[in-house]
């Protein structure tokens, strides 16, 4: 077969990405650009959504070998850190190093608000089942209501890896939209009088308590819900680096360069899972709608429970701090502060809202632990698996 130079050039042109570009690829490149736009110009969680968007862009350039499923590709390599559940716990190590649990310790009852906000997880779970998802998928979607990125990624990669991309994007997007989503719900569910309640100053907490707290939380929670240990254990270790006062070097690295490096790898990996066949589906639309529901119900759950606590305490608690129970630290607490200050500019709710806010992180980790107890991968540990299988078969055989 004889070929001219022109034919060879034609062949070269055939090896470009253009020749393989599908409508799906093009749409996903557009989605990536929208994510980058939201991250950069709308400041939607840019530390996550910018690299997620860029990972999505790379993954959808045809033949670039950058999708999470392209074995041997660079982002497939990073994706192993999501698949084997290594990166989300390391992010939590950094989050722990950045978190001050002082306001929670000063007012431990606010942990109940962190629990109440999880109602969003379960209304969404039921909603997702209604829309046709199975129980594992519905749980992974529900956890968006926990308003916690690494937890959502951890649970999605464990229970419904094929939904990782839309769940992660929905979780981080709605976290950015907390200042828009929450205030109307908060105003609708509270009276002006309630919003004006001033709370008494938080009492100071001994440093010893702050040091013992992460150890106690780890023992108590991980004994009850072993599946939560990678997330909660690392969160608490990071916090112990912070509070112990003897590991300043480790604390400094953990809260800066370690969490930054891990965030880059994690976000690129998540982005690389956003391909046309996983993202351009009806499920994604459903997840986006369910995610909004999750955030709204979590906010409402927190506020309503705070109203009850306010009544029971004889008006010592401002119900506006309830919405902070969704986590999304520290944005949700700032929203409580802002909505409170609208009613009475001299009312400073920020520190009081930080209690339920960090409680929300613990709350959604605990919620994740419950899901892992119920649906965790049975291949990992036979003993653990047996128990989980038993529970599931038990539940399935409940009277209908």
């Amino acid at each position: 077969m004889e070929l001219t130079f022109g034919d060879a050039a034609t062949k070269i042109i055939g090896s470009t990405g253009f020749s393989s570009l599908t409508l799906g690829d093009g749409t996903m490149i557009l989605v990536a650009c929208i994510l980058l736009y939201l991250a950069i110009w709308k400041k939607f969680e840019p530390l996550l959504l910018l690299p997620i968007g860029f990972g999505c862009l790379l993954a959808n350039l045809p033949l670039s070998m950058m999708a999470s499923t392209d074995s041997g590709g660079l982002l497939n390599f990073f994706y192993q850190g999501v698949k084997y559940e290594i990166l989300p716990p390391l992010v939590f190590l950094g989050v722990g190093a950045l978190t001050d649990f002082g306001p929670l310790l000063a007012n431990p009852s606010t942990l109940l608000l962190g629990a109440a906000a999880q109602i969003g997880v379960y209304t969404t779970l039921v909603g997702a089942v209604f829309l046709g998802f199975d129980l594992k998928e519905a749980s992974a979607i529900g956890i968006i209501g926990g308003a916690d990125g690494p937890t959502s990624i951890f649970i999605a990669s464990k229970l419904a890896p094929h939904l990782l991309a839309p769940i992660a994007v929905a979780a981080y997007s709605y976290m950015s939209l907390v200042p828009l989503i929450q205030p109307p719900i908060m105003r609708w569910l509270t009276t002006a009088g309630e919003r004006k309640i001033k709370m008494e100053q938080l009492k100071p907490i001994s440093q010893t308590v702050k040091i013992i707290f992460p150890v106690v939380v780890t023992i108590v929670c991980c004994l009850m819900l072993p599946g939560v240990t990678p997330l909660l254990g690392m969160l608490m270790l990071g916090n112990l680096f912070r509070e112990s006062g003897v590991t300043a070097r480790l604390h400094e690295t953990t809260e800066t360069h370690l969490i930054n490096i891990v965030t880059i790898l994690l976000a690129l990996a998540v982005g690389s899972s956003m391909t046309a066949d996983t993202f351009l589906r009806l499920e994604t639309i459903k997840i986006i709608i369910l995610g909004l529901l999750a955030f709204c119900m979590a906010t409402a759950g927190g506020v309503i429970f705070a109203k009850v606590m306010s009544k029971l305490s004889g008006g010592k608690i401002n119900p506006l701090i309830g919405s902070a129970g969704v986590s999304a630290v520290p944005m949700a607490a700032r929203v409580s502060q802002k909505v409170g200050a609208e009613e009475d500019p001299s009312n400073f709710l920020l520190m009081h809202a930080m209690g339920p806010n960090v409680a929300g992180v613990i709350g959604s980790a605990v919620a994740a632990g419950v899901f892992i107890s119920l649906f965790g991968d049975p291949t990992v540990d036979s003993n653990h698996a047996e128990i989980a299988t038993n529970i599931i078969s038990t539940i399935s055989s409940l009277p209908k």
Partner: protein
Amino acid sequence: MDSIVLTSLIVSLIAILVIFTVLIVLIYTIKLLVRLIPYEEPPAQKITSETLPKTSPPSVSPDIISAITAVMATHLGKSPQEFHITQINPK
């Protein structure tokens, strides 16, 4: 009612019960801790850290502190509100 929807309701109920149980246990543990180890005004150190600044203000001006804070903020990529300089000791 669909069986899976019922199951999802039961799962939700159990999960909420477990979450509240775990967190209520945690609340009482914290309350116990805080009662056992009450906050005390730090005695010796407090005095030092309050005395020192009183003797040293002419030597380290607030400008320098804010300058350094700003640089560190730029350097660390944090807002200056996220950290503060607690003490500066001339060597």
